[in-house]
C-alpha cells in the first residue's frame, strides 16, 4: 500500500468527490471537487492529480494535487455531487442548492442554476422564513434529490426552474442522507435510525416502506447502495457502526459491524469492485473493508462448528443459488465477520475525516485538519 499524499489547503474540507470519467473510457480519475465548511468564506474547488510533478525540476512533489479553480459558496458545503462531467451540485447550510458549471477550456467554475430556498422552516408558529441546512444530495441525471434538516425532500430537474416534486415534513427528524435505489425510488436515512423508501410514482406524502430497527435508535449519517445489487444498502451510524441492509427483507439490518469510535460520516462501495467498501469517521480514521467470497462455504461452516441453525440454512440457500454469482458477499450473516478484512488507510489519526470518494484505483478524502489525502494505488 503506497502512502497517501497529503496536502494542507487552509480550509476544513467537508466533501470530496471524483469527477466521473466518460462511461466506457479507459481514463483514470484525475480531477476531483472539494467543498469547505465552517469558514468565513467557503469554496467549491476543483483539483487535478495530473502529473504536474514531473514537469517540476525538483521532482519532489510528484503526485501532489494542484488547484485548478474555485468559486465562493454561500454557507457550509454540506454535500457535493457530480451531475455529469461538467456540472456539480452543491448543498448549502443556508438551504440553497446550486449547480456549478465547470468550464474545462478556461478552467473556471460558474453558477449555472440555484434554488435558493430549497430547504426552509415553514408552518404555523415558525418565523415567516428561516432557512434550514440542506444535508444531502443525490443525482441521477437529470434528476436531483435533496434532503434537509427541515425534513423535506425535493425533487429537482436540472432543466426545470421550480422543484418537480416537494414532500414537506417527509420526516419528523433531520434527514441526513439520500440515495437513489431504483430509478423512481429513493432511500433516505434519518436521525432516529430509520431508512425510508420513497417512490415518486406514488402520490401522497408517505414513504412506500420504512425500515426501522427496534431498540436503540442510532442516528444514521450516511447511506450507499451496492452498485450492482440494488437491494443491498450500507449505512453508517452515529456510534460508528456499519450496517448492511437488504431492503427487500424485514426492517432490521442484515449485519451490524462495530467499526469506528465516533460518527461514520461516509460509506462507499467501490463502484466497479463492490466487494471493497470504504468508510470514514469523526474519530479521524479511514477504513478499507474487503469482503471475500473466495472462502469455501463448507470450511467456514466447520470453523463455526455449526453454531446455529440459521447460519446453516443460510449457507444452504447460498449453495442452492450457486449459479447466481451475484449473491452479495455482504449479505452473508454470521460468518461475515470471519471473512471481512479491514485495513486502516491513514497513518496517524487526529481530526475528523469528513468525506471520501473512490474511483478506479484512486481514493480521495478530506479532513477537519484542513488536509486532502489522495492515493492512486489503492489495490497495489
Amino acid at each position: 500500500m503506497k502512502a497517501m499524499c497529503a496536502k494542507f489547503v487552509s480550509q476544513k474540507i467537508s466533501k470530496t468527490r471524483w469527477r466521473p470519467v466518460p462511461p466506457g473510457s479507459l481514463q483514470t480519475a484525475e480531477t476531483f471537487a472539494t467543498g469547505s465548511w465552517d469558514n468565513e468564506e467557503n469554496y467549491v474547488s476543483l483539483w487535478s492529480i495530473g502529473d504536474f510533478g514531473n514537469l517540476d525540476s525538483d521532482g519532489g512533489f510528484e503526485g501532489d494535487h494542484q488547484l485548478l479553480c474555485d468559486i465562493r459558496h454561500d454557507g457550509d458545503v454540506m454535500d457535493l455531487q457530480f451531475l455529469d462531467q461538467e456540472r456539480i451540485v452543491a448543498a448549502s447550510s443556508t438551504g440553497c442548492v446550486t449547480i456549478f458549471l465547470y468550464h474545462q477550456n478556461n478552467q473556471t467554475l460558474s453558477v449555472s442554476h440555484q434554488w435558493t430556498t430549497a430547504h426552509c422552516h415553514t408552518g404555523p408558529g415558525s418565523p415567516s422564513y428561516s432557512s434550514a441546512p440542506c444535508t444531502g444530495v443525490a443525482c441521477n441525471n437529470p434528476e436531483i434529490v435533496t434532503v434537509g434538516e427541515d425534513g423535506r425532500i425535493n425533487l429537482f430537474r436540472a432543466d426545470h426552474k421550480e422543484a418537480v416534486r416537494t414532500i414537506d415534513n417527509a420526516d419528523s427528524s433531520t434527514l441526513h442522507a439520500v440515495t437513489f435505489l431504483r430509478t423512481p425510488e429513493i432511500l433516505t436515512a434519518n436521525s432516529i435510525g430509520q431508512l425510508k423508501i420513497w417512490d415518486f410514482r406514488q402520490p401522497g406524502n408517505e414513504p412506500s416502506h420504512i425500515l426501522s430497527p427496534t431498540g436503540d435508535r442510532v442516528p444514521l449519517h450516511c447511506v450507499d447502495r451496492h452498485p450492482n445489487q440494488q437491494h443491498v444498502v450500507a449505512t453508517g451510524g452515529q456510534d460508528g457502526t456499519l450496517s448492511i441492509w437488504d431492503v427487500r427483507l424485514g426492517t432490521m439490518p442484515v449485519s451490524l459491524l462495530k467499526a469506528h469510535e465516533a460518527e461514520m460520516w461516509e460509506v462507499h462501495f467501490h463502484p466497479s469492485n463492490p466487494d471493497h467498501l470504504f468508510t470514514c469517521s469523526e474519530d479521524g480514521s479511514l477504513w478499507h473493508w474487503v469482503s471475500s467470497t473466495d472462502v469455501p462455504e463448507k470450511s467456514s461452516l466447520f470453523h463455526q462448528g455449526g453454531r446455529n441453525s440459521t447460519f446453516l440454512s443460510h449457507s444452504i440457500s447460498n449453495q442452492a443459488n450457486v449459479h447466481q454469482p451475484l449473491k452479495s458477499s455482504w449479505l452473508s450473516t454470521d460468518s461475515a465477520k470471519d471473512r471481512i478484512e479491514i485495513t486502516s488507510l491513514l497513518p496517524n489519526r487526529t481530526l475528523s475525516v469528513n468525506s471520501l470518494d473512490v474511483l478506479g484505483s484512486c481514493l480521495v478524502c478530506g479532513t477537519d485538519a484542513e488536509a486532502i489525502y489522495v492515493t492512486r494505488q489503492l489495490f497495489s
Partner: protein
Amino acid sequence: MEEVDGEPIITLIPGVNSKKKQLCFDWGPGEMLVCETLFNKKEKSEVVPSCPSIYIIRKNEDFYCRILRKLFNESHGIFVGLQRIEEELTGKSRKAELVRVSKNYRSVIRACMEEMSQVAIAAKDPATSSLFNNQVAILSAMELVWNLCEILFIEVTPAGPLLLHLLDWVRLHVCEVDTWSAEVLGSENPSKHESFWNLVTALVLQGRLDEARQMLSKEADANPASAGMCRVLGDLMRTMPILSPGNTQTLTELELKWQHWHEECERHLQDGTFAPSGHLESLCKIMLGDEKALLEQKQQLSNWYHFLVTRLLYSHPTVKPTELHFYAQSSLDRFLEGDSSSEPLDNILMAAFEFDIHQVIKECSIVLSNWWFVAHLTDLLDHCKLLQSHNLYFGSNMREFLLLEYASGLFAHHSLWQLGVDYFDHCPELGRVSLELHIERIPLNTEQKALKVLRICEQRKMTEQGKVRSICKILAMKAVRNNRLGSALSWSIRAKDAAFATLVSDRFLKDYCERGCFSDLDLIDNLGPAMMLSDRLTFLGKYREFHRLYGEQRFVDGASLLLSLMTSQIAPRSFWMTLLTDALPLLEQKQVIFSAEQTYELMRCLEDLTTGRPVHGEPDAQGLQDDDIETTKVEMLRLALARNLARAIIKEGSLEGS
C-alpha cells in the same frame, strides 16, 4: 508583580475617534469589543446616537493568514503525536524521537516559509510583497532559534560534535553561498568571475573546505603562477583534523592533531608561503582563526553568530557547551563593535547560548505576534524534562500557560477552534475548565457542527457539567421555534432532558387537540425505551398506542389502555376530558367493551373531574363548568356510561349465569 518587560504597543483602531478619549470596552476570550461612549453630564436629557459602531478587536491577526493556517494545522498533528510519545518511550529512543519531532516542526516552518516567499514573489503590488517578505523573515528567525534550541537543549550535543552541529546550523541559515556557487560555477571561466574569491572565502568561513579546495584547483588550472600556493593551501584544507561522526578518536587525540595542524598553518604564514597572493594569505589567516582577518569579512559573515561559529571552528574546535556563552558574548561585542543596539533576535540567541531557556521563551514571547512558536517550543522542551522547576506565580506552569494562551486564540477563530481542543486536553490543570468555557461559545449553525461539538464533550465526559445537555437544549429550542417538534423531541431524548421532553410532549398533545391528528408518527411510534424519559412522554406514547389499537379495531385492549392512563395518573388532568371523549365511541359500540367495573372507574374519573376537586391543584377543572359545550359533553358521557353500565351488567350477569 514583575516589572513590565517592554512598553506596550499602541494599536490605533481605524474609525474610532480617540481624541474624544471616551471609549468603553469589554474583553472576550480572544477578542475585545470597543465602542465610543458619550459621557456628558450636562446634556443628560439629550439622546444623540453619536457612537454608531461597535468594533471587534482581534488580537491574533496571524490566525487569519491563509498560509500560516497550514502551519497551525500541520503542527497540531505533530503536537498530538508528541503527547503520545510521552507514555511509550524511554531512554535513548526517546531522545531520538524528540529530535525527530523537533525536526518535523522545523520542516513545517520551512515549508510555510517557502510558500510565503513564493507568494511574496508572485505578489503584484509592493505593499503585499513586503508584507509577505516580512513574514518570511519572522518565520526564518523562528526556525533559526528553534534549530539552535534543538542543538543545545534537545540533542544536548557534547563538545566536538557540537561544533559540527553549529556549522550545519549556520550553513542552513546563511544560504546565499549556494546561489553564488551555482552562479560562479555556471559561468564560462569560474576563476575569473568577479565573485570567485568572495565565494571561496565564504566557503572557508562556513568550513566547507572540500568545496573550497575544488575552487582552488580551478584557480590553479587557470593561473599556473599560483598553482603551487594553491596546492599548499589545498593540502592544509585537506589535512585539517575534524571529528567525523563514525570516528572513534577521543577529543584529546583530536586536540593534539589539531594543534599540530594549526602550527603548520602558522609556519606557512610566517614563512610567507602565500605572500604573493593577498587572497590566499587572507584565507590562511581565516583558517588560523585570526580575528582581524575574520572581521574583515563582515560582509560575508553577515551576522555575529556566523562569526562566532567560524571563530570557534578555527580556534576552539572542541568547545564545550558550557563555554559557548563566553565566546558568544565576545563575538557579539566584537562584531557589533560597541554598537549597542542589539536586535531582539540577538538577545534570544544569546540567551540560548547562555542556556537560559526561560529567557529564550520570554524574549520570544515579547517579540512574536502569536503564541504558536513559544507554546510548541516550550511543550517540546518540557517533554525533554528541562522546565520542571519553573512555576509561575499565576495559573499553572509555563508550558500550560502558553498552551492555554495559544489554544484560546485558536478557539476565538471561527474555523480553527477544533485544533484548540487537543491543546486544552494536554493541559492537566486548567485545560478542562478552559475547554468547558470555550466550547459553549461555539456557534451551532448546523446540526452536523453541533454533533461535532457534542462528540467533543461526550468524549471528554462532560455530561456531568451539563455541557451536553445545554447543547442539546439549544438545538431542541431551535427546533421548537421552527415548529420541528419531532426533531426537538429527538434532541431532548439525546440530552435525557425530562423537563424539555415534557414541554415538547405537551406541544404534541396541544397540536393533537387542535388538529385531531398526530404529526411525526414515525418518531412517536418508535420511541422504545426512550418513552420512559418523562411521564408526559410516556403518556404521549401510550396515548398514540391507544389510537393505533383503535384504528386496528382492537377495542378491548384500547379501552383498558385508555382507562389505565387515567387511573395510573399518567395522563395530565387537563387531558382527561379528551380521554373520556375518546371513550365515547367505544361506549357506543354494539358489543360491550368496558366491563361493569371499568365503567365504574370511568364514572369515578368523570365525577372527579366535574366536581372540581382540585386533587393536584390543577385549575382547569374549574373552567369546565362555565362552558356550555363542556356541560353537554359531560351529559352525553354520563348517559353513555349509564347505558354501557346497564349493558355490561346484563352481559356479565348472563355470561356468569350460562
